[in-house]
């Protein structure tokens, strides 16, 4: 038996409010592609960031080729041959490809001067060795996301990498780009590199992976050789039993009158002629890959970004929505994917946050604030939404992610919002709290609200939506009813790019 390149055991890690890893385990052998699967929030990325020296571990041990390793920072990890390609690209858009790849390791003359020709030559040599087609001298900000991804991979390869971690490398790539990437991965595997492949696209694992490790709720579940890992088996391991519990949660009805109609919304290169209808009592899911324009669409409908053309009808009447203020007045609420930045005033207390979107209503004569009304509004929503908080004066900063999300929902309910746009409603929320958010969304729909739900988690989309719109590159490429939607059909539509002429 070959000694493993990497052995991680009993890894624990918590962040304020969330225990991200309880018992993280992982083993990587030389010359294998090891897939790491799990739902969002299962702890895959956290485990790999610990291996890459980005987060310190709270407990557990990491062995590299049998020896206990210390990985205090990314530099130390890279020196020991561990590189990571990040999910969210970590590049400097103002620097060139070569400058990005060799940042921190530039060839120098006389100790301080940069040797730019040597830098570019080194990058060129790297590209030829690895069959990556990139111009070293182009600024990274001018490249497409897919090309930027290639820069990240090239950067990881430029170290003497024995362990290459790829966090969702194919999420934003086209079919040909994925084929190129896999060819590269096979080449590296043949050379003895151990590759960790984190992916949500389970069907591609059969093509590339040798073994699969599944995680759930911050815990190791099992490791299987790929021939035993059928799609169904992986999914069952990923979701545990919850998939059967949540299926019946699918809301009924959804054929009320139109609340919101968007017609021909276009904005620059982000949105192309988008039209859809949201009906009373339904949850309309919007699926798509990163960069498909889902958030941009939400922001356009909400008036946060201007549009070039298109009209929006509310209750069948044309509505002028030029700013979020207009949207709120028309009864639209937007729950940003980034609650902490855009949804909440973190330093203020629960009751103030709940009143924030309708402050006018809590205003007395001469602009005084009616604290009593704010208090009773707060009490009502904390009770109705089951927000777990010691008291109404607790600062929102100290609530858990799920309860913060409930405060945002309560805020829009206070403002009598009929149309709610949820952007990644359960991002960064514990599994237990997720179920509560789903339940709440179902209740809201049943009470006659219209809900648009943007989500990158396909299980969430499939579980929650009456109808699903799929977007790709700023276009709506398809609409599916909940009973005809599958992960595969959604993915097919989400990658249906328009032929480039």
């Amino acid at each position, binding site marked *: 038996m070959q000694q493993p390149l990497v052995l991680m055991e009993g890894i624990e890690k918590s962040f304020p409010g969330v225990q991200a890893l309880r018992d993280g385990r992982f083993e990587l052998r030389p010359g294998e592609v090891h897939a790491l699967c799990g739902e969002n929030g299962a702890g895959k990325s956290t485990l790999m960031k610990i291996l890459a020296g*980005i987060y310190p571990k709270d407990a557990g041990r990491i062995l590299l080729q049998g020896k206990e390793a210390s990985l205090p920072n990314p530099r130390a990890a890279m020196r020991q041959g561990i590189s990571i390609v990040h999910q969210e690209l*970590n*590049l400097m858009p103002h620097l060139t490809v070569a*400058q990005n790849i060799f*940042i921190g390791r530039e060839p120098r003359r006389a100790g301080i001067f940069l040797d730019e020709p040597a830098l570019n030559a080194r990058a060129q040599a790297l590209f030829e060795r690895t069959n990556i087609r990139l111009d070293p001298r182009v600024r990274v900000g001018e490249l497409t996301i897919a090309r930027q991804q290639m820069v990240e991979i090239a950067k990881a390869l430029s170290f003497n990498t024995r362990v290459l971690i790829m966090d969702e490398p194919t999420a934003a790539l086209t079919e040909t780009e994925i084929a190129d990437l896999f060819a590269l991965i096979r080449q590296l595997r043949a050379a003895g590199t151990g590759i960790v492949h984190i992916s949500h696209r389970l069907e591609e694992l059969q093509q590339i992976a040798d073994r699969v490790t599944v995680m759930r709720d911050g815990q190791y579940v099992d490791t299987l050789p790929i021939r035993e890992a059928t799609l169904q088996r992986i999914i069952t391991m990923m979701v545990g039993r919850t998939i059967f519990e949540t299926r019946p949660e699918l809301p009924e009805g959804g054929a009320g009158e139109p609340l919101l109609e968007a017609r021909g919304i276009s904005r620059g290169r982000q949105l192309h002629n988008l039209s859809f209808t949201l009906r009373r009592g339904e949850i309309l899911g919007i699926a798509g890959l990163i960069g498909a324009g889902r958030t941009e669409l939400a922001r356009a409908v909400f008036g946060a970004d201007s549009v070039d053309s298109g009209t929006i009808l509310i209750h069948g009447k044309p509505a002028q929505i030029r700013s979020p203020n207009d949207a709120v007045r028309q009864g639209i609420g937007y729950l940003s994917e980034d609650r902490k930045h855009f949804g909440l005033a973190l330093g203020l207390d629960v009751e103030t946050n709940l009143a924030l979107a309708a402050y006018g209503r809590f205003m007395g004569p001469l602009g005084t604030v009616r604290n009593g009304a704010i208090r009773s509004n707060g009490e009502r929503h904390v009770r109705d939404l089951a927000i777990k908080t010691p008291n109404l004066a607790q600062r929102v900063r100290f609530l858990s992610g799920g309860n913060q999300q409930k405060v945002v929902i309560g805020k829009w309910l206070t403002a009598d919002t009929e149309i709610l746009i949820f952007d990644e409603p359960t991002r960064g929320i514990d599994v237990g709290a997720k179920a509560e958010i789903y339940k709440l969304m179902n209740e809201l729909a049943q009470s006659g609200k219209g809900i648009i739900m943007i989500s990158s988690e396909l299980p969430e989309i499939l579980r929650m939506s009456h109808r699903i719109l799929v977007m790709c590159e700023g276009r709506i490429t398809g609409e599916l009813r909940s009973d005809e939607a599958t992960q595969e059909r959604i993915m097919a539509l989400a990658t249906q790019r328009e032929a480039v002429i």
Partner: protein
Amino acid sequence: MKALTSSRGLTFLPANAIQQVLAFGALIGLVIVFSLASPNFLQFNNMVGILLSTAVNGVLALGVTFVIITGGIDLSIGTVMSFAAVMAGVSITYWGLPVAVGVLVGLLAGGLAGCVNGLVIAKLRIPPFIATLGMLNVAKGLALVISGLKPVYFNDTPSFNQIAMGSVLGAVISGFEIPNAVLLLFVAAIVASLILNRTVLGRYTFAIGSNEEAARLSGVDVDRWKIAVYTLTGLFSGLAGVLIASRLNSAQPALGQGYELDAIAAAVIGGTSLSGGEGSIVGTIIGAFIISVLTNGLRIMSVPQEWQTVITGVIVVVAVYLDLVRRRK
């Protein structure tokens, strides 16, 4: 993702080249307008006056360009300049040290103040705006304390005045009496340009401004390089302090405040982005000249001082607005 300009693949052509071309066009336009408006504008003496008045602000602007490219700011450069001037003055006039040593003391005083800024920002994680606002007052107070609230004159050391006001060029080419201060500005600009474009420090200045987290994750010691960048900015303020003291033949402890805004304005007009990652030395020099030409031209046209200030303010806002409009496309 930020929209970027269309200059493809040409690393020697900075991405803010368009802003530079616009700024240079504006500078030429101003010169043409003022020369038509007043026959005195294009006189040799007036031109020398413009160059001379650009020297101090230009050197400060060169320094502050570095911190702005990192996405930071330095509000203390003006008062650090007078602190450095006072330190040079006290060393030479009160302690009787040689002029060369006094100059060195001035430069190091600036560098030290910049280093403290960098330490406070990088290690204590105080935002640059606050940290350097603190240093603005510290340096102002120290300059007053050390000087005993009064100017320090260099009457016993005439060679000190020659640093800025002598003319090496005039000695070589007769009639070409351009003061050394101008020469020093251009030397400083060349050095700054080399540092920014050809050294590791310059590369990390851009890297930190472009995506600090990415630089950190790539193993760049961001804290250390930030301290280095603020120290460099301090050294430029020290040089500006020596220049202004030499030009006035005295170190004026209460003079510096307000200079920082003109310097920041020069950098911004020249296309340095306050959000970091973009900027150039050529742009900053053009920006500094735009401000000088404007001030000088308006004075020649007898526009009152207070209106000159108003116009400078409007120009800065317009320049930044044009830059924003350009980026949005």
